[in-house]
C-alpha cells in the first residue's frame, strides 16, 4: 500500500506544472540564468568603473606640484578645466554638479610640513554613495605611490639605501606559515557551506509537495476519501512522507547538478579541474559520509512539513505556517559557519548546528567518531520521533476535520 500511495503521489506531482517549475526549471535554468545575468552585469559595471577616466581638480595645487604632475601623467585621470562661466563657481559646486568626480584638497601648508618632516593631511572629496565607486581606491593607490617616492627621497638624502630604509619603516616582518593540511583548510571552508547550501534546498524541495499532499488534499476533499479506505493511516503517512523525501533530495540534487553544469559551461575545463581537485583533496568517502550526515535532517524536515501541512486547513494556511521555517533552519547553520565554533559535546546537543559542524569535522578529516556518531544517531532519533508524531497527528479527528 505504501508503494501504491508513493507512486500515485509522485505521478501527480510530476504532472503538476508548478512542481516541475520548482524542482527542475527553477534550479536548472532560471536560477543560474538569473544569478549569471546579475554576476555578468555587476562584473561589467565594476570593470567599467575601474577603467573609467575620472575628472578631477586639485585644490592648493601649488603646494603639491610633483603630485599634480604624477596625476596628469596617469591616463585614467583627467584634469577638469573650467569654462569662463564655471570659474565663478567653487570646486564644491563643481563636485555637486558632477563636473568633477573628485577634488583632492592638498594641505595649504604641505611644503613646510614636508620640510619639517611632519605629516601632511590631504582630503579627498567625492560622492561615496555609489557602491561601485572606485575613486577612493584609485586615488589612494596614487597617493601611496607618491608617499613611497617621498620616503625614498628622504632616506636617500640621509644616506640610507633601499633595504635600510625598509628596515627603519618596518623593522619586523611577520610571515604566515600555515601548518594546516590542504584538506583541513578546504574542509573547514567547505564544511559549513555544504550544509548551508544543501539543507535549505532540501527544505525548499520538501515544502511545496508537502503542502499539496496534506493541506491540498484537505482543500480538494480527497483526504476524506483516502482515510475511509481500509489502508492503515501509517501506510498513508509513510507513502506521503517518502514522496516528500524524494522531492526534497531531487531538488537539492538538481541544484547541485545545475551549479556544476553551469560552472562547466561558463568556466569550461577550469571548473572541472576545480571539482576534481576538491574531490581529490577531500576524498570521495569523506564526502559521502558528509552527505550521509545530512540524511536524518532531511527526514526530519520531511516529517515536520507533512505534520504542519496535515494540520493546516488550506493551501494558504499551510504556506503561512511554512514561511518562518526557513529562518529557523538558516540561523543554526550560520552559527556553524562562525569562526572558532567546533564540534564538542556542548554543540552536539544543538540540532542542525551539530550536523553542520559534523560535516565540517568529517571534511577536515579529523573527526571524533563517537561524537559524530552521537550526532547522527540523535538526528535519526529526532527524525523518527517527528515521523511518529506525524503518524499520531494523522489519526486525530481534531487535526483532520478542523
Amino acid at each position, binding site marked *: 500500500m505504501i508503494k501504491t500511495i508513493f507512486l500515485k503521489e509522485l505521478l501527480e506531482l510530476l*504532472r503538476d506544472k508548478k512542481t516541475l517549475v520548482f524542482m527542475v526549471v527553477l534550479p536548472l535554468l532560471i536560477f543560474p540564468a538569473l544569478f549569471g545575468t546579475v554576476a555578468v552585469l555587476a562584473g561589467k559595471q565594476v570593470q567599467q568603473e575601474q577603467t573609467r577616466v575620472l575628472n578631477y581638480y586639485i585644490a592648493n595645487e601649488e603646494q603639491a606640484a610633483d603630485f599634480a604632475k604624477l596625476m596628469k601623467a596617469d591616463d585614467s585621470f583627467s584634469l577638469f578645466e573650467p569654462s569662463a562661466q564655471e570659474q565663478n563657481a567653487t570646486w564644491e559646486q563643481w563636485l555637486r554638479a558632477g563636473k568633477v568626480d573628485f577634488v583632492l584638497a592638498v594641505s595649504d601648508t604641505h611644503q613646510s610640513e614636508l620640510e619639517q618632516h611632519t605629516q601632511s593631511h590631504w582630503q579627498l572629496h567625492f560622492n561615496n554613495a555609489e557602491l561601485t565607486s572606485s575613486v577612493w581606491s584609485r586615488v589612494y593607490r596614487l597617493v601611496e605611490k607618491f608617499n613611497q617616492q617621498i620616503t625614498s627621497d628622504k632616506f636617500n638624502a640621509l644616506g640610507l639605501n633601499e633595504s635600510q630604509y625598509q628596515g627603519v619603516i618596518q623593522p619586523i616582518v611577520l610571515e604566515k606559515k600555515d601548518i594546516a593540511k590542504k584538506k583541513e583548510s578546504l574542509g573547514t571552508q567547505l564544511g559549513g557551506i555544504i550544509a548551508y547550501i544543501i539543507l535549505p534546498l532540501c527544505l525548499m524541495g520538501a515544502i511545496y509537495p508537502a503542502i499539496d499532499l496534506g493541506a491540498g488534499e484537505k482543500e480538494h476533499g480527497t483526504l476524506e476519501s483516502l482515510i475511509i*479506505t481500509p489502508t492503515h493511516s501509517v501506510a498513508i503517512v509513510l507513502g506521503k512522507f517518502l514522496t516528500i523525501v524524494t522531492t526534497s533530495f531531487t531538488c537539492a540534487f538538481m541544484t547541485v547538478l545545475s551549479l556544476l553544469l553551469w560552472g562547466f559551461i561558463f568556466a569550461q575545463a577550469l571548473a572541472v579541474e576545480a571539482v576534481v581537485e576538491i574531490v581529490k583533496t577531500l576524498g570521495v568517502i569523506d564526502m559521502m559520509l558528509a552527505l550521509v550526515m545530512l540524511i536524518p535532517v532531511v527526514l526530519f524536515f520531511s516529517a515536520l512539513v507533512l505534520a504542519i501541512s496535515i494540520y493546516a486547513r488550506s493551501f494558504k494556511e499551510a504556506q503561512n505556517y511554512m514561511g518562518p521555517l526557513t529562518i529557523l533552519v538558516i540561523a543554526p547553520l550560520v552559527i556553524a559557519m562562525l569562526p572558532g565554533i567546533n564540534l564538542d559535546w556542548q554543540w552536539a546537543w544543538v540540532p542542525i548546528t551539530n550536523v553542520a559542524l559534523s560535516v565540517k569535522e568529517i571534511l577536515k578529516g579529523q573527526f571524533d567518531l563517537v561524537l559524530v556518531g552521537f550526532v547522527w544517531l540523535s538526528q535519526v532519533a529526532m527524525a523518527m520521533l517527528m515521523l511518529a508524531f506525524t503518524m499520531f497527528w494523522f489519526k486525530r479527528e481534531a487535526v483532520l476535520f478542523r
Partner: protein
Amino acid sequence: MIKVEQVCKRFPLKDAKRVNQLNQSDPRIYGRFFNVLDNVNFSCQQGEILGLLGANGAGKTSLLRILSTALSPDSGQVLYQQQNAHQFKATVRKKIGFLSGSTGLYDKLTGLENLQYFAKLFGMDDEQFEASLANLNQALDMGDYLNRRYQDYSTGMKQKVAIARAVIHQPDYVIFDEPTTGLDIAACEVVLQFMAQLKEQGKAVIFSTHHLDEVERLCDRVCIIERGKAVFEGDLTQLKQSANESTLQPAVLKLMQSSR
C-alpha cells in the same frame, strides 16, 4: 443491516466569540462544546434505501461521517451485521462505500487512474477491478471520458466518477451525502437510477438529501435529524400520518418545527 445505537458526538468550540453568539440561541452548546449528535438511533436493512432528512447544520454530515468511520462517536455504536464499525475499521471499511458532500478526486489523474488507485487501496486485483469498472461504466454512463484528466470534467461527470469511486469495491453498504446536489437533470436521473439499482442488488443505501421528490421516488424509510436528534424514523406513510399531513413537505416541516 446497519444499526445506529445511541450515537453521541460533540466538538470543542475554540472560538470564544462564536460560543457567546451561539449560546443564546442554540441548545446544542454546552460550555465550550457543541453537541452535534445526541443519542441518535436508527437502522437500515439490506435491499432498503433510507433517506436522511434535516435542515442545514442539523448534523447529517457528521452522522454520515460516523457511519463511514471517518469520525468516531463519543458514545454509542454503529453496527454493520452486528460488527462494531469503529472497533473493526479495516474489515468494515471494505464493506462500506461512502461519498461525502465535499468528496473530490485527484485533478491531475484521469478518471480511470483515480478509480484504479482506490481499487488498489481497497485491495482489489486487476481482474476484480475490470469487472467492477465494466458494470459501473454501464450503470453510470461514464463513456470514454474516463481517460481524460479529472480536472477537465464537468460537475456531472465529476460526480459520476466520484460515485463510481465510492462503490468500485462493490460494498454491501452505500452511504451518499447529497449525491445529486449541483447536478443537471440528466446526470441527476442517472444517479437516482443507479441508487435504485443498488437497492435491487440487495445493498443497504443511506443518503442525505433536501429533495423530497427523490425521497418519495426512492426511499423505503426516512430518518429526520433535527438539531442533532433523530426526531422521526419510519416509512413515508407513517411520516405523513404522524404529522397529520397528506403530502411530504408539510409533514417534514411540521415534524422538524415541533421538535424545536
